[in-house]
C-alpha cells in the first residue's frame, strides 16, 4: 500500500470512527429528541450543524469548480446560497421556532387548517429531499472509488451503512452532534489546501486576501489580472466579467437560489432544535458565519485552480506542455475518464483553447478541480487524504439531514398526522426509523442506478422549495388574510409553472426525449434558465394566492388569526398572549 492510500484510509476511517462514537453518546430516546434533538442545542453548535447540513458534496466538491470555469458568472451560487440565510433569519426561522412543532408540513397543515396543504407540502419535501440525497450518495461513491480505489458500489454501501448507523440510532440528536464534528472536518479539509495554494501563488496565507493580491513571482501583477490575461489569450471569456447568460438571468438565478435555500425543509427544521426564538435568530447568524468560512474561500480556490491548470498546460505564451511530459495527477484523472486529451493536430502538445475545433482538452470535468487541486499544487499526501475525508463529511452530513427530513415527514405528517393519529410515541419513533431505513435503501439504489434526472436534481429541489414551500410559509406568517383554498391554489400554481418550465426543457422527470414543445427556443422566457425559474414560480404562487383570496373572499377562522398573532411575538406565556 502506498503512502497516500495509507493516509487516506487513516483519515477516512478515523473520522468514521469518530462519527460512530458521537452517535452512540447522543442516541435518541424520545420523538422530541429524534425530531428536534429535544430542542436544546446551543445556537453556536446548532449553527455549525446547519453549516454541515447545508454544505453538501455540491458545495464542497462542485462549487469551486463551477466558479473556476464560470468566473464572475459563478457568483450566483455564492450570493444565492448565502443570501437565503438572511431571508431565513428574518422571515421564517424565529416564527417557526415560536410555533414549536417538529416538521415544516406540520406548520403548513395547521396554519392553513388543511390536510391537503399538509400533503402537498410533504410531497414537495420528499421529492426535493430524495433527489438531493441521490447526489450525496453519488458523491460518496465517487470519493471512495477515486481515493481508496474500491468499487463504486462498495463505496456507496459503506457510506449508506455509516449514515444508517448514526441517523437511525441518534435521530436529530445524533445527527446534530455528528454534524458538528463533520463541519470541523470539512472546513479544515477545505481551508488547508487553499491556504497552501494562496501562500504559494501570492505569498499571502489568507485565500480571501490572496485572491486580491499580486503574484509572488516578482512580476507585481495582480492574480486576477493575470488570470484574465491568460484565459482571454486562449479565447476564453474574461474571468472577472464573464456573465452567466444575461443580467436578468443572473438576477433571477440568484433570487431563485436564495428563496430555494430559505425554503428547503431540511435546513428550516434545524431551527426547531434551538431552545428559544432568540436562539433561532442567532443560530442563523452563526450558521451563516460557518458557511461563509467556506463560501468566501471557494472563489479563491476556483480562481487559483484555474490559474494553476492553465499554467501547467501552458507555462508561457509560446510554450505548450508536451503530452508525454504531463504530470502524474494528469494521468491519475485520465484513468477516471474525467480528464481527456485528444491530439487533434498530431504535434504531441496539449492545445487548450476556447475554439472547439482546435481544443485538445476534450474533457475537463468541473468536479475534479477541488479534488485535484492539492495534487496540481504539489501539496503533501496528507493534505490530499484530508480532502477525501472532507468530501465524505460534506456528503454524509447532508445526506443524514435530508433523510431525517424525509423520515419525519412520513412518520409524523403522513402516518401520525393524517392516516393513523392514534399511534403512540413509541410506535411513531419506530415508524420513523423504518421510514429512514427505507429512504436510505431507495437513495442507495438510485445512487447505484442513477436515473437520467440525477444531474438536474438541484434545479428540481430548489425549484420546488422556492415555488411552493417558501411562499406558503411566508404568507402563513405575514399575510393573515390568506386561507387554505388560496394557499393550496398558490402552491399548486407555483409548482405547476416551475415544473412545466423545467420539464419542457429537460424532459419529464429529466427523462430524455420527453421534452415537449421542442420547437421553442431554449430559455425562451426572457432568457431565463430553467434552473433560475424557481423565483418566477414563487411570484406566481404569491400572485395566485392573493388573487384567489380576494375573489372567493376567504378569511381564515378566528383561531388561526390568533395563532398567527401568537407566533409573531417571542414570549410564550398565556399572560403575554392575551392583551388583544
Amino acid at each position: 500500500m502506498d503512502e497516500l492510500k495509507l493516509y487516506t484510509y487513516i483519515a477516512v476511517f478515523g473520522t468514521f470512527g469518530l462519527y460512530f462514537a458521537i452517535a452512540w453518546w447522543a442516541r435518541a430516546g424520545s420523538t422530541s429528541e429524534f425530531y428536534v434533538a429535544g430542542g436544546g442545542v446551543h445556537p453556536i453548535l446548532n449553527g455549525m450543524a446547519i453549516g454541515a447540513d447545508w454544505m453538501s458534496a455540491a458545495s464542497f466538491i462542485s462549487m469551486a469548480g463551477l466558479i473556476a470555469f464560470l468566473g464572475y458568472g459563478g457568483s450566483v451560487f455564492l450570493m444565492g446560497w448565502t443570501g437565503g440565510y438572511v431571508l431565513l433569519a428574518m422571515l421564517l426561522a424565529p416564527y417557526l421556532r415560536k410555533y414549536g412543532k417538529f416538521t415544516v408540513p406540520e406548520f403548513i397543515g395547521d396554519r392553513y387548517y388543511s390536510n391537503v396543504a399538509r400533503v402537498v407540502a410533504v410531497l414537495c419535501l420528499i421529492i426535493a429531499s430524495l433527489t438531493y440525497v441521490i447526489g450525496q450518495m453519488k458523491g460518496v461513491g465517487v470519493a471512495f472509488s477515486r481515493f481508496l480505489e474500491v468499487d463504486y458500489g462498495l463505496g456507496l454501501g459503506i457510506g449508506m451503512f455509516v449514515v444508517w448507523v448514526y441517523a437511525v440510532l441518534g435521530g436529530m440528536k445524533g445527527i446534530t452532534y455528528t454534524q458538528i464534528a463533520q463541519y470541523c472536518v470539512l472546513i479544515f479539509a477545505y481551508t488547508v489546501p487553499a491556504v497552501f495554494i494562496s501562500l504559494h501563488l501570492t505569498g499571502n496565507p489568507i485565500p480571501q486576501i490572496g485572491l486580491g493580491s499580486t503574484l509572488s513571482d516578482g512580476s507585481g501583477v495582480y492574480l486576477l489580472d493575470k488570470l484574465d490575461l491568460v484565459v482571454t489569450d486562449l479565447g476564453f471569456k474574461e474571468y472577472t466579467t464573464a456573465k452567466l447568460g444575461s443580467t436578468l438571468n443572473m438576477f433571477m438565478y440568484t433570487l431563485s437560489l436564495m428563496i430555494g435555500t430559505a425554503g428547503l425543509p431540511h435546513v428550516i427544521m434545524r431551527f426547531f432544535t434551538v431552545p428559544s426564538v432568540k436562539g433561532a435568530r442567532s443560530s442563523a447568524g452563526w450558521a451563516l458565519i460557518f458557511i461563509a468560512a467556506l463560501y468566501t474561500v471557494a472563489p479563491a480556490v476556483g480562481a487559483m485552480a484555474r490559474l494553476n491548470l492553465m499554467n501547467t498546460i501552458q507555462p508561457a505564451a509560446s510554450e505548450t506542455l508536451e503530452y508525454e511530459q504531463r504530470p502524474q495527477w494528469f494521468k491519475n484523472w485520465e484513468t477516471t475518464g474525467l480528464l481527456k486529451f485528444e491530439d487533434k493536430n498530431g504535434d504531441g502538445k496539449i492545445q487548450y483553447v476556447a475554439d472547439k475545433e482546435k481544443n485538445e482538452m476534450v474533457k475537463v470535468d468541473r468536479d475534479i478541480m477541488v479534488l485535484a487541486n492539492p495534487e496540481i499544487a504539489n501539496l503533501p499526501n496528507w493534505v490530499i487524504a484530508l480532502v477525501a475525508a472532507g468530501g465524505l463529511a460534506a456528503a454524509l452530513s447532508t445526506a443524514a439531514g435530508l433523510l431525517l427530513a424525509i423520515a419525519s415527514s412520513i412518520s409524523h405528517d403522513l402516518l401520525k398526522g393524517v392516516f393513523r393519529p392514534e399511534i403512540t410515541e413509541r410506535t411513531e419513533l419506530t415508524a420513523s426509523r423504518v421510514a429512514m431505513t427505507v429512504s436510505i435503501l431507495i437513495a442507495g439504489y438510485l445512487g447505484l442506478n442513477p436515473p437520467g434526472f440525477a444531474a438536474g436534481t438541484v434545479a428540481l429541489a430548489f425549484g420546488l422549495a422556492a415555488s411552493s414551500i417558501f411562499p406558503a410559509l411566508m404568507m402563513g406568517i405575514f399575510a393573515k388574510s390568506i386561507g387554505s383554498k388560496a394557499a393550496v391554489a398558490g402552491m399548486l400554481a407555483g409548482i405547476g409553472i416551475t415544473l412545466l418550465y423545467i420539464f419542457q426543457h429537460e424532459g419529464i422527470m429529466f427523462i430524455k426525449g420527453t421534452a415537449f414543445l421542442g420547437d421553442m427556443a431554449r430559455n425562451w422566457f426572457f432568457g431565463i434558465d430553467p434552473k433560475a425559474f424557481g423565483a418566477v414560480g414563487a411570484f406566481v404562487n404569491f400572485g395566485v394566492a392573493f388573487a384567489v383570496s380576494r375573489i372567493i373572499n376567504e378569511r381564515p377562522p378566528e383561531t388561526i388569526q390568533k395563532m398567527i398573532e401568537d407566533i409573531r411575538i417571542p414570549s410564550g406565556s398565556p399572560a403575554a398572549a392575551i392583551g388583544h
Partner: protein
Amino acid sequence: MDKHQSYWKANLRLMSICLSIWFVVSFLFGIILVEPLNNFHLGGYKLGFWFAQQGSIYTFVALVFFYSYRMNKLDKKFGVHEDEEK
C-alpha cells in the same frame, strides 16, 4: 394600537431596512451595477466582482447579527422577550 401591533410594526420596519441592504449589496452592486463598479478597484479585485464574490457575503453575516441584536432589544422594549416568563 396595542403593544403587540406596535412591536410588529417596529419589527417590519427593521426588517425592511435590513432587506434593503441585502438587496443593494447583492442584486444592485453584485449584478445590476457590476459594470460601472468594476471601474473601481479594491486591491486586485474589481469592485463589482468583489461585491459579487466576497462583499455581499460579509454583509449578509453582519446583517443577520445586526437584526438579531436589534430584535432582542425590541423584545425587551415591548416586554415580549422569553426569558422572564420561564
